[in-house]
């Protein structure tokens, strides 16, 4: 491992300290010399991931429309291509040729920037998702063109934080879109969006915190690897954090039943009311891309990523990709199923669920797992720690619900006394 270029050199030097980890050199591909073949593979991975994501968004939109139609006893798109599979393409082409409107009262620069702030994070998040590689018997690498590499565009040691950071940036896309439109409904939509996404970001982050507390790493590749060796960490992360992640993730995506951001009955189109043509298409693309990347992240963090039995020797590298696709598909089906089944939340219900249920539950679980880890390290009896912890949390929950009930009673009293108007 001679350091020829500074990049690879940085990787090897710091890798010695961090167990062969550095910002970019976690991937075995980048540990050695950086020659043309290596660069070629990196570029290939980027291009493939980009194209894969675009195509899967196209198929996802078609799949969603078709499945919702099935659940409504309708037929759904059926004209463009076999089974209407090219409907998304047709819609995209149509949007491309529509007039591109910019409202007079808009903040033009921000108005133009906002769609990209939505779209770019959606693309970038997918870069840290391992979509293949044999985790069951190997180390999660594949050997292509004589080079061993991970099947993910990048495996930064702060992978999960990268995901959280990008999903926070995506909030800006929505918020700035509504703010810069110079119109009432988009503004209301974006205010709802930022409040909702920030609230649920907290629960999402706490659910993920349990995951990397359990696996001991922020790198998505390592998280998958620890899940494979430990039965997907079902007990620690498979129940409470997983469910919290699912609910918070759905809210983060602004998908039904949490789609108050673009509640058509109330806000016209929500934050993208004033957008048309290609800029609207970008929002649309970002929205559905986020659905796919969120599913991929959920699979990576909770369901063992691409791991699964490899049933044949030939084309053995294809099995993990297949398992990954199957798992992601299950999530996509679930998202559409939710949309077909559940009515939209009221805004105060949404905030109640986020702040009074999801955040306390995920925080409590995180503290419990942390306490168990400490008890393990210090040699304390784990059962006792769990009992004490649960008792403490029950007390906390009682205090919280008591405080909520008291505050509510006071508000009602104030209303009866004619002092307030807010319920």
């Amino acid at each position, binding site marked *: 491992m001679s350091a020829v270029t500074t990049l690879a050199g940085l990787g090897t030097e710091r890798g010695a300290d961090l167990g062969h980890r550095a910002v970019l050199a976690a991937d075995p591909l980048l540990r050695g010399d950086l020659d043309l073949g290596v660069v070629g593979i990196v570029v290939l991975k980027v291009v493939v991931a980009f194209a894969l994501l675009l195509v899967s968004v196209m198929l996802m939109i078609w799949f969603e429309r078709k*499945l919702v139609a*099935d*659940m*409504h*006893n*309708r037929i759904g798109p059926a004209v463009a291509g076999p089974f209407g599979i090219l409907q998304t393409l047709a819609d995209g082409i149509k949007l491309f040729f529509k007039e591109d409107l910019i409202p007079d009262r808009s903040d033009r620069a921000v108005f133009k920037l906002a769609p990209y702030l939505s779209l770019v994070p959606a693309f970038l998040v997918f870069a840290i998702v391992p979509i293949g590689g044999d985790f069951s018997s190997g180390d999660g690498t594949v050997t292509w063109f004589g080079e061993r590499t991970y099947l993910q565009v990048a495996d930064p040691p702060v992978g999960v934080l990268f995901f959280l950071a990008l999903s926070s940036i995506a909030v800006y896309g929505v918020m700035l879109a509504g703010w810069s439109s110079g119109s009432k409904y988009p503004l209301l939509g974006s205010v709802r969006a930022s409040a909702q996404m920030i609230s649920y970001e907290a629960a999402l982050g706490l659910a993920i915190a349990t995951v990397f507390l359990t696996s001991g790493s922020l790198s998505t590749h390592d998280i998958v690897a620890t899940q494979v060796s430990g039965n997907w960490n079902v007990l620690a992360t498979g129940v409470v954090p997983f469910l919290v992640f699912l609910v918070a993730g759905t809210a983060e995506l602004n998908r039904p039943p949490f789609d108050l951001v673009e509640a058509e009955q109330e806000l016209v189109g929500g934050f993208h009311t004033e957008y048309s043509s290609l800029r609207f298409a970008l929002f649309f693309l970002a929205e559905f891309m986020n659905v796919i990347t969120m599913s991929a992240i959920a699979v990576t963090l909770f369901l063992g990523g691409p791991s699964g039995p490899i049933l044949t020797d030939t084309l053995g590298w294809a099995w993990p990709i297949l398992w990954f696709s199957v798992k992601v598909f299950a999530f996509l089906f679930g998202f559409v*199923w939710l949309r077909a*089944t559940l009515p939209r939340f009221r805004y105060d219900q949404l905030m109640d669920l986020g702040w009074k249920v999801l955040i306390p539950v995920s925080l409590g679980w995180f503290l419990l797992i942390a306490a168990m880890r400490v008890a393990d390290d210090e040699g304390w009896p784990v059962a006792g720690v769990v009992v004490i912890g649960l008792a403490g949390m029950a007390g906390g929950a009682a205090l919280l619900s008591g405080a909520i009930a008291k505050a509510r009673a006071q508000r009602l009293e104030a209303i009866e006394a004619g002092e307030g108007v807010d319920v």
Partner: protein
Amino acid sequence: MGYFRGFAVTFRKMFERRVTTSYPQQKRDKPARLHGRHVLNRYEDGMEKCIGCELCAGVCPANCIYVRGADNPPDDPVSPGERYGFVYEINYLRCIHCDLCVEACPTEAITESKLFEFSFTSRSDAVYTKDELVVDAATGRPQHLPWEDWRPGEDEHTSAWMRATSPSGDATYTGRVSWSGELGHGVRAPEVGQAGGSSTDAGDDSGDEPGGDA
């Protein structure tokens, strides 16, 4: 766990039969008494039934019918009687398909087909002239104009509503034939009963058979 029953409902729906018809490709059967685009009928010998009496124009609440009668040329009469419909125009931008013209007509000259799928790109196309309204001189079927969507078999049902109604609304005449034959169809059989909805299919289909001619 009532909350989760909804998921079972939506899941079950995926495997149910679709209620949607892929409309332009497939069409549902139209109701037996649907009021559509008019036709001007002919007798079985090819003569026009219209006598140019203008009763239809008089009764029309939308004022969409314009008729002028004229004396039949003695050497080449258009209709069996003294007069015939010289000009006959219906403006489909005004017609409300109330069927009052059909009821007013003394010779069953004007009836309504079930065609409603026609559209125009100009106002003049919306005014149907007599040449367009009168049934084909060879087959007795309505003419198929370029902007109309006819499917095979749809042009047979051109006078079902009239035959379903007994003369003067007298129930004792129900089922009694009191109408003349039509070119290509002969004397149509009377409709059986006052069936509505899905049960019309059995009674009406047999009544509309072109084979029922005398």
